[in-house]
């Protein structure tokens, strides 16, 4: 086919995405940058206020609390979740039979995602009649008030997040199956024990998948919303007012579109910086087969 016809066909076929990109990605990004420098409550037109919204954010106690809550949640749920899914995958990968069955059963809770899962855990964490405190009572422990306790609200949500480690596990299983048998056998003949083989063979081979999951999980947990909306409404006393929940409140409850846009732009920048940092940092540790460095 001639180059010119190819070009025409290419642009015709990808036209839907180009339009979508312009309308639903590029325009919103630029527009929210613009709105972030304005006062805008939808009913009257936006008024330019310069950096006011950004300065307000830095003096806003709820803004700092939302960052603290989000980082707290991320710092515990992501690494522990990754570790658990890796352990589950390693255990599963050793099985000669029943791999598929265990994988199905362990992934199933991830399918009850979102609101149903949240409602279920509100019930489990019910301080009086919930299963969580019943279990603790079997060991003679008086359980906390969980979601209605300022100290325990975020840890409750972190605990709940571990029931979706099946997702990461599936990715790790796929990665583990890609580790060449010959490498492990060679290491075995050299007298390497289980731990040595894990550190020097398995881990380097699956490190790109590990990296990828780390980035995706950090980005996702920066955007945690459903749990706060359904289970705690940001409380008690702002304990679970996560960053995106705070954006939602400002934009769609208080209609402070300008301020909320400033918050959402900061989220965009943070997500990009974190992604870049993790990728840069990982270049040192991640092994890409074929010596490709990226």
């Amino acid at each position, binding site marked *: 086919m001639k180059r010119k016809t190819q070009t025409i066909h290419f642009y015709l076929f990808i036209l839907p995405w180009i339009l979508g990109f312009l309308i639903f990605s590029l325009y919103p990004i630029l527009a929210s940058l613009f709105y972030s420098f304005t006062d805008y409550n939808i009913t009257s037109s936006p008024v330019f206020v310069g950096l006011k919204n950004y300065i307000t954010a830095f003096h806003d106690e709820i803004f700092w609390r939302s960052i603290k809550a989000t980082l707290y949640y991320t710092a515990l749920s992501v690494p522990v979740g990754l570790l658990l899914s890796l352990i589950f995958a390693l255990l599963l990968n050793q099985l000669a039979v029943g791999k598929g069955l265990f994988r199905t059963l362990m992934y*199933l809770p991830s*399918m009850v995602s*979102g609101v149903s899962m949240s409602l279920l855990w509100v019930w489990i964490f019910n301080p009086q009649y919930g299963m969580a405190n019943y279990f603790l009572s079997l060991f003679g422990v008086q359980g906390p008030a969980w979601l209605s306790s300022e100290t325990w609200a975020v840890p409750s949500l972190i605990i709940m997040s571990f029931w979706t480690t099946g997702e990461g596990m599936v990715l790790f299983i796929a990665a583990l199956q890609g580790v060449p048998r010959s490498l492990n056998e060679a290491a075995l003949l050299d007298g390497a024990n289980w731990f040595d083989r894990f550190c020097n063979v398995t881990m380097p081979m699956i490190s790109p998948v590990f990296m990828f999951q780390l980035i995706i999980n950090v980005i996702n947990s920066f955007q945690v919303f459903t749990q706060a909306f359904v289970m705690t409404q940001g409380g008690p006393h702002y304990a679970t007012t996560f960053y995106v929940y705070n954006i939602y409140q400002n934009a769609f409850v208080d209609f402070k579109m300008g301020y909320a846009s400033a918050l959402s732009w900061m989220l965009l920048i943070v997500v990009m910086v974190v992604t870049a940092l993790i990728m840069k940092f990982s270049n040192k540790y991640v092994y890409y087969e074929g010596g490709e460095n990226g």
Partner: protein
Amino acid sequence: MNAQTVRNGSRKKAKAGSVIGILVLIFITIIMLFPIFIMITTSLKSLGEIFQFPPSIIPKNPSLDNYVNVFKTLNFLPYFKNSILVSACVVVGTLLSSSLVAFGFSRYDAPGKKLLFMLLLATMMIPYPSIMIPQFLLFNQLQWIDTLKPLVVPAFFGSAYMVFLLKQFFGSLNNELFDAARIDGCNEFRVYRKIALPLCKPALATVAIFSFIWSWDDLLSPVIYLNSTENYTLPVLLASMTSKFRVPPWNTMMSAALLTALPCMLLFIFCQKYFVEGIVTTGLKG
């Protein structure tokens, strides 16, 4: 010690290890499934039985009354219809648009293609909360607030994840097939429609399943766009229930939560093959 004895020794160890491994896995699986078990048993209990301490593990008089109540008192059916309507439209839109775009990216060479593909990948990183406000204002201008349109229309403009997944698949198809069709006089759209699409049915199934689940579970955008109760999708209905009751009837709510989760769970159980493929190709999640 020669290689053989090393192997035999480690085989014995491996055998003992795998027995312990299986036991640990069974234990973990029970823990992982326990919340779902609680959801099911709670949905079969009476109101009196759920507010009881210690809670019963197995319901004393299991009954399906709560499921009847989901339809009678919670008026579940209209919301179920809304959810089905939204998810079905999103699936159709995503399939159409993403397959066209992916076909374009995989079969033609053109100036600017590399850059555009990089842009496509970059849009996967954009957090939805960062762009939801201008999107909302845009749909507000169109007077689409409190309709299902804002939840459906963007799907017809391609999803970056799905384009990526389908592009991988189209790229693996044999070029000769397409050339043969062209020689037979097919135009490019016919080649896409008659050759490419039928060949990538499994990948299309993966796309359909994932876009269904994402749209079915979505809470943030319906919460933003839907104001009147009659327009709610199931997640919004469930989310509004906690504040509706002074003492929530957890048994009925668990029935509703289970019924809401059921389509995705069934899809997963019966279409696992496509799931694993999708997760592994793109790293996307259910």
